[in-house]
């Protein structure tokens, strides 16, 4: 998986995840939209067979965009770890 930043301005960013698909794209989009600092977020696959989703995010006026993306990914990672812990406990019972 190769990450490329296609566009970066003060409060908006376009990132390409070469090698991914809707699995991560939709998840990242949804988690971005739940963030209070995000004004707009979306993802698109320019071609369904190409597996190169582009994630677009735009923060509210005056807020920095870089930290929001990292914050969102960390939220997803935390949720995945929480799932693993809860699931292991539930299966052992």
């Amino acid at each position: 998986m190769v990450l490329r930043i296609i566009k970066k301005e003060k409060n908006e960013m376009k990132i390409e995840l070469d090698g991914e698909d809707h699995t991560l794209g939709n998840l990242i989009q949804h988690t971005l939209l739940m963030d209070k600092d995000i004004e707009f977020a979306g993802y698109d696959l320019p071609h369904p067979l190409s597996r190169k989703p582009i994630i677009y995010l735009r923060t509210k006026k005056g807020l920095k965009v870089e930290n929001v993306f990292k914050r969102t990914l960390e939220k997803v990672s935390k949720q995945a770890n929480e799932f693993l812990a809860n699931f292991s406990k539930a299966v052992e019972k």
Partner: protein
Amino acid sequence: MKITILEQNGNSLRFVLSGVSAPFANAIRRIIMAEVPTMAIDDVMMFENTSAMFDEMITHRLGLVPLTTDLDTYLLPEECDCESEFGCNNCRVSFTLDVKAEAELKMVYSGDLIPENADVSPAVKKIPIVRLANNQRLKLEAYARLGKGLEHAKWQPVSASTYKFMPIVEIDTKKCDGCGDCVKYCPKNVFSIEKLKPVVQNEINCTLCMECIRHCPIEPSPIKISHDKKTFIFYIESTGSMPASKLVKEAVKILERKTQSVIEQYKKVK
């Protein structure tokens, strides 16, 4: 986030996951199907085939046989250092098959594949491969490797990986006339009659088909059917490569690894 196991027998697993978003549940479902590595036969050296089926057809069938998988011992070929076309002991397992039919018809089964390592063997032994007639013989050597469902369906570790929303079925007994039609027409026996009025006895089995409301003589119906958008009832059925609970764990580990990979690359490029 809350997880409750409803049913677990061998290869199938039914559990309830609540407190997560639909994209998270969908990511788990998609990764279980397409990105959890499984063992499957990929290369076959055909020594003798005098059967009625041609070589490519037999090897295609062998590729589809589910094999028990040990993810800790073997590596995906792209991650293995050997970088050889045929693989090494870390990324490839071999099988031999040598069946000859004598006087009677003989069926070659998946159980006739003799593994080099007993940890990676056919999950089901009675899958018919080809039928041999008198004096026909099938002799081959097969090589299995790890792969993902994305590349070819033979590497899909599940026969079912699905979820549905938790149904919410409510009856306003004050408005209900006790005709019993909902009990009669429900295909999943969600309702039963108690003290002349219908009660919800089996809410979790509801498929949201709305047949009860359709047949209810009162309009608007006292039955209210909806679903909880944050609670998912998962059903995972493995083909035998790994127990279903292990599949779910591996899938979420892969999701976590993917997210970490995005974070690392982002930090570098930022």
